[in-house]
């Protein structure tokens, strides 16, 4: 095209070409951008402006139309010295609620106690916990707690309450009127001294102890036969033969955490320990302990004395000791007697029946077997369970007679758990002044004129001496949430003393305990160190063994006759979660599946399937019990024919919104017999109502269907071949063929091993996991819909000694009278070839470089494909929004109880899948600790919540890449197998076979078919 030029200069430019044109200078320079970019950036015109404007307005409108909830985060005005946001602090403390005892370490985040762990320094529990201990932290944030003092049901101030109470107490004491402190068992020496000081002020004061689940017969029997009115230490760890009679020592009897730990020691086997205890259990309901026994014999409660006497006579015969008349034993006891006799000094016989004569026979057997001083010794005596049933009964009589002028109810709830609630309630009304020191405005507190709310143990100072010479301390981990006051301080105040319990304890320790040690020079040092450790243990004093006084049994020979009640014999028992009912308002415990029946949220009439069928009763039939109340039927294999068992702890009326109205209160069936309150002397009649009452259970099929899910063997076979029972593992390993490369992990490769021989099924891990990982409680209806959220569950299967491969069998069809039971904890197996990972369309569940199967909640869209494809079924779906939803009015629905949430773990939204993460937050924390300190991780340093809570140390976690770790050694153990290993999922969880100590040939051998 022709170019025209306007001037000569322009012509020159055109001829020279565009290169010579002067470069336009950017208006301003921007570092790191090319010129073009700059020029583009600064170019802006009206259109761009309008575009930007329109877009911004649109975006602002869209953003502001979304409702974003306002959340307040209040920073520390004055940061406490120790507290670092995001870091947890740990305080040693002691859990004791008048019933269970456990030295603990409390994890505190930003001033909130959020988790309770066992204190590993304690020689009693060695770091073990129970479900109830684990759940106790939630009670702190329970909205049912009494928040301020009350007078006659009206809110009152402390000042007013104190003035009036002191005035009235003075008056009563002045008139020589009887003042009674009715307390739960007290193990705190300082509290005992508070009682003394109170008595000094009001000399007419008497202290009574009351335990709903009483052990007073043990004290009575020991007084009569050994002249020692105390509960001895039982040493299951020293026993090679253990015989239990109706004694759930692993679950609820006396000190179950301690006993579980001891028991597991005897069940441990390995290259250097080829022996194992032999455990016989004679019992009248299927208890957790019975489910672990090598040989379990179902007996009627009325037969217990007969069986026991026969056992005594058999042993006595051999050792030329006096014999007692006994009816012939309904079961064969030759083997037990033989075994016991052969293990003198290394055996232990215990009975959970609260009957003086039975306990006297137990003592006699232990005495004959020379167990005294060994497995059964009085070197240290147990200080819990101080209640005396006779005294309590007398007190109620006196109250009824109007002889008691003032009653201080301290941490007791007889208006719920006394056997004659009506009598107690009426009697209380005849007492002039009634004061309840209670955490909750419960059934009993409601009867009192004054309610003085007590601190939760996590808000309290306290000390404890559960065994003579073994002390521990409690310290507050949070300032009291409500207008509560520690019970001891109330008593001190009323006694006219300085209500400062901390100083009081310190003074007591300085005066009484400081001298007994020589490690610390000043009391301050001693106190600080003890407080830090939480425990302080003195050497046990060696005492001479007492001699057994046979006269007692001789005199009472007539009482040793069995008394057969009319009708079905009834056994009352404590559930692992709910116990005596004190913690019934704890949703974690209500939703903890019973280790045996797997039922939640209810109590029921457990009945032998055979008996039920013969009498036309089917599962979930609502029956009228003794014509007074209705409970559903539950088929319980192992329940002796002609007996039923019902759990106590239910039927609360004023326990709180969770507990109220669940199940029925059956305390009324306990009876005062032979001077003690007995739980298996009742009898019932059942009357069909024709209605059905659904029971929510987390497992409805109870047979392994002959699949090799739990592999077991017997001790002798294991000794001959450590891989016995696990032959399939080698076969499966050989068959392992794949086109894909085996995944390689260069750093850590996390793994978990589960020793099925040590797992007793106590379910502490389930609650620990729930607390650690913010797991929702979903309530009975949803559990019934099979939607429980627990990340770890314990599968329980029944099996019969005879191979039974009749095809599909469920509880309605399989009716073993006395099945063997196995417990198998199942959590995410963190498969290295995980079926769930491949199928997720959005890659929300990837595999980590350390072998963990992870869940990215933010990415999950909830197709549930992973759940379907997980052969272990460990994945959990958030079917509803479980947080702040009135339909799920449990701990996630209240501001207060949400304080227990672990800030390290996301609270999951509705519609996402969740599952066990091996407590990745704990792995990360410990890894960072090690990194900061510039060291390698130690084996056993990382403990997922389940591992940490386990009282028997059945679970071991660690790095499988390091051959020296415990878990790596377990993985090489010939007993090790992976669950469903034939699917080639390459699971990171290994199970060690269960070994039973019984004769070979009896074990069912259905794996090899």
């Amino acid at each position, binding site marked *: 095209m022709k170019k025209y030029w306007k001037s000569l200069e322009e012509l020159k430019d055109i001829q020279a070409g565009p290169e010579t044109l002067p470069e336009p200078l950017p208006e301003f320079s921007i570092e790191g951008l090319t010129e073009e970019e700059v020029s583009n950036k600064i170019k802006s015109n009206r259109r761009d402006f309008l575009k930007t404007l329109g877009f911004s307005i649109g975006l602002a409108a869209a953003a502001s139309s979304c409702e974003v909830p306002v959340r307040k985060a209040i920073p520390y005005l004055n940061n406490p010295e120790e507290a670092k946001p995001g870091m947890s602090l740990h305080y040693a403390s002691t859990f004791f609620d008048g019933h269970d005892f456990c030295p603990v370490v409390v994890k505190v985040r930003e001033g909130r106690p959020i988790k309770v762990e066992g204190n590993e320094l304690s020689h009693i529990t060695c770091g073990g916990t129970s479900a109830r201990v684990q759940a106790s932290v939630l009670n702190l944030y329970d909205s049912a707690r009494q928040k301020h003092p009350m007078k006659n049901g009206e809110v009152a101030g402390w000042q007013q309450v104190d003035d009036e109470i002191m005035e009235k107490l003075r008056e009563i004491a002045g008139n020589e009127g009887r003042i009674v402190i009715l307390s739960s068992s007290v193990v705190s020496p300082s509290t005992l001294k508070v009682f003394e000081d109170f008595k000094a002020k009001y000399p007419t004061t008497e202290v009574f102890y009351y335990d709903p689940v009483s052990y007073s017969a043990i004290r009575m029997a020991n007084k009569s036969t050994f002249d020692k009115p105390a509960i001895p230490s039982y040493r299951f760890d020293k026993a090679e033969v253990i015989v239990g009679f109706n004694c759930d020592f692993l679950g609820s009897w006396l000190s179950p955490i301690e006993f579980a730990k001891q028991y597991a020691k005897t069940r441990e086997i390995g290259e250097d320990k080829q022996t194992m205890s032999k455990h016989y259990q004679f019992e009248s309901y299927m208890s957790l302990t019975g489910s672990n026994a090598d040989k379990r014999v179902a007996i009627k409660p009325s037969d217990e004395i007969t069986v026991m006497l026969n056992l005594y006579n058999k042993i006595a015969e051999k050792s030329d000791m006096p014999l007692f008349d006994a009816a012939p034993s309904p079961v064969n006891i030759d083997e037990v007697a033989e075994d016991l006799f052969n293990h003198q000094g290394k055996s232990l016989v215990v009975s959970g029946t609260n009957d003086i004569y039975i306990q006297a026979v137990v003592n006699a057997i232990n005495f004959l077997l020379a167990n005294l001083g060994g497995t059964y010794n009085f070197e240290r005596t147990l200080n819990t369970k101080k209640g005396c049933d006779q005294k309590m009964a007398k007190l109620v009589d006196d109250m009824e007679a109007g002889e008691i002028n003032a009653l201080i109810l301290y941490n007791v709830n007889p208006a719920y758990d006394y056997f004659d609630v009506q009598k107690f309630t009426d009697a209380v009304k005849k007492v002039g002044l009634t004061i309840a020191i209670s955490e909750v405005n419960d059934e009993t507190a409601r009867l009192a004129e004054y309610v003085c709310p007590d601190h939760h143990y996590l808000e309290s100072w306290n000390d404890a001496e559960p065994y003579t010479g073994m002390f521990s301390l409690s310290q507050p981990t949070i300032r009291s949430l409500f207008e509560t006051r520690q019970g001891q301080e109330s008593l001190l105040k009323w006694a006219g003393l300085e209500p400062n319990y901390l100083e009081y304890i310190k003074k007591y320790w300085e005066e009484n305990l400081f001298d007994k040690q020589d490690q610390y020079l000043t009391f301050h040092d001693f106190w600080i160190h003890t407080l830090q450790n939480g425990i302080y243990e003195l050497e046990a004093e060696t005492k001479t063994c007492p001699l057994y006084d046979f006269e007692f049994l001789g005199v009472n020979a007539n009482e040793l006759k069995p008394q057969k009640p009319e009708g079905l014999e009834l056994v009352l028992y404590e559930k692992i979660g709910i116990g005596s009912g004190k913690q019934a308002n704890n949703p974690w415990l209500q939703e903890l599946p019973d280790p045996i029946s797997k039922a939640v949220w209810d109590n029921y009439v457990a009945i032998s399937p055979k008996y039920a069928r013969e009498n036309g009763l089917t599962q979930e039939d609502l029956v009228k019990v003794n014509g007074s109340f209705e409970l559903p039927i539950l088929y319980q294999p192992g329940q002796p024919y002609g007996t039923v068992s019902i759990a106590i702890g239910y039927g609360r009326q004023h326990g709180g919104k969770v507990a109220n109205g669940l199940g029925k209160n059956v305390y009324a069936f306990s009876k005062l017999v032979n001077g003690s309150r007995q739980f298996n002397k009742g009898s019932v009649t059942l009357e069909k109502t024709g209605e059905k009452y659904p029971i929510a259970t987390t497992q409805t099929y109870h047979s392994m269907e*002959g699949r090799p899910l739990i592999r077991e063997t017997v001790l002798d076979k294991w000794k001959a071949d450590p891989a016995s029972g696990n032959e399939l593992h080698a076969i499966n390993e050989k068959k392992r063929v794949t086109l894909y490369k085996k995944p390689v992990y260069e750093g850590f490769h996390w793994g978990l091993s589960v020793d099925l021989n040590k797992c007793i099924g106590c379910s502490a891990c389930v609650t620990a996991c729930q607390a650690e990982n913010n797991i929702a409680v979903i309530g009975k209806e949803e559990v019934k819909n099979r939607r429980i959220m627990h990340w770890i569950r314990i599968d329980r299967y029944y099996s019969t000694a005879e191979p039974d491969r009749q095809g599909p069998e469920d509880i309605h069809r399989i009716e073993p009278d006395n099945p063997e039971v196995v417990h198998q904890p199942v959590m995410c197996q963190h498969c290295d070839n995980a079926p769930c990972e491949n199928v997720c369309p959005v890659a929300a569940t990837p595999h980590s470089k350390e072998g963990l199967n992870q869940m990215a909640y933010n990415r999950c869209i*909830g197709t549930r494909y992973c759940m379907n494809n997980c052969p272990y079924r460990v994945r959990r779906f958030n079917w509803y929004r479980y947080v702040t939803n009135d339909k799920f009015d449990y701990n996630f629905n209240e501001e207060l109880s949400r304080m227990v949430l672990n800030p390290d773990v996301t609270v999951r939204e509705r519609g996402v899948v969740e599952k066990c993460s091996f407590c990745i937050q704990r792995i990360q924390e410990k890894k960072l600790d090690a990194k900061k300190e510039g060291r390698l991780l130690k084996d056993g340093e990382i403990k997922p919540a389940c591992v940490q809570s386990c009282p028997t140390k059945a679970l071991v976690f660690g790095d499988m890449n390091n051959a020296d770790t415990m878990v790596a050694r377990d993985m090489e153990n010939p007993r090790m197998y992976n669950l469903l290993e034939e699917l080639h999922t390459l699971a990171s969880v290994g199970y060690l076979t269960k070994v039973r100590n019984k004769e070979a040939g009896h074990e069912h051998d259905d794996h090899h078919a």
Partner: protein
Amino acid sequence: MYNKSFRGVLIKGNKTYGQITSEILAPQERKAPLWWFVSMGISTLGMLIGIYAIFITISQGIGTWGVNNSIGWGWGIINFVWWIGIGHAGTAFSIFLLILRQKWRTSINRAAEAMTVVAVICAGMFPMLHMGRIWMAFFIFPYPNSRGPLWVNFNSPLFWDVVAISTYFMASATFWYLGMIPDLATVRDRAKSKIKKAIYGLLSFGWVGSARSWLRFETAAIIMGGLTAPLVIAVHSIVSMDFATSVMAGWHTTVFPPYFVIGAIFSGFAMVLTLMIIIRKVFKFQDYVTEGHIDAIGRILTFISLIMGTAYSTEIFIAWYSGMEGELYTFFHNRIAGDHTKAFWTMVSCNAIIPQLFWFKKIRHSMTMVFIISIIINIGMWFERYVIVITSLTKDYLPSNWASYTPTWVEIGIFVGTLSIFVIGVLLFIRYIPMMAMSELKMILKGTSIITNSNKSKDHE
């Protein structure tokens, strides 16, 4: 070439071109009959139930369904697979038969394709609804993003489901619409009201019927058909892989892709039969959809039914042959016998046994019998999906997890809703769109149906 003397005429009644147009468009040019409004009303009610159930699902959560931790999928996925199966009919009909140059398809393909489109819409709702977080459903699309970028899991069949179904839906809808253009133009030309003219004018893209247009049109149809044909196979193969790639006993089966595709065509053809029998009866289209058509479909169904029977037996044989505990249990204790016996045997009898009645000509020619069997087949196919989804999940590897499943009213409500949407779709179709491909009928008319003396003599030669 179509041999009239051997196979009879396709369109009876010696129609003229004009007759075809007026007869096929007659129902639409009349006022809508009362039954149309009644059915519309009932299905709208059903749809409202469905919408309410969907509202409950989305507002409260999947918890309102009967599914649980052991059985993650229930009616949602059963119905999804069932609808997708039905959605195979149209495309299979038009495309396979188009490629195979089967002329008898012309009176049926339009309706079959319409059914496909509606069925796929119904099917497509379920994977969305069964998601826990439907508001995050867009995560399933692989699009560049600022999250890493984070891509979808290309290993997951669920992702390919989305790809296949959306592609299939778009392809079938396009194919259907493309084929309609000349007919829409006919409607436009015959329209009396201005609005109708404008709407159909818009829809027919100004079709004038020039030779060039026809040429392009036919080429496009063949190309689209060729492209869509593999999709028919792909869609249900991928759906089957949702199950086949898993480790669940009863799902982990290599026979699934062909078995599912065949099953889908089976249910699709059955649904076509159901629909066509109603349409030909109601609109008196017996001349267009002749007994010969029904007979042909019947013969196809007999054959497919045999394949279904073979597939069922293969599955059982392989379960036994594998010797695997889980497989054996699923098939022998949970399907053939056990809790789900009824569902299993309903499936077998409805799909593999009852359709064998089509061997009898008498039955193939009895419209009542054909109608009943076509419905039975679709019930059977629903149970097939039920058996697959539910039995494998209820009793899987660990007996501790065994659970049962019962749908809630919400799940049933959604299913009722989709059934209603399907009916509404069909009702709208028969009211506003030429029910048969008039242009195609006219194309084949001369060669297949017009009986003239000259033709007759030619055939004899």
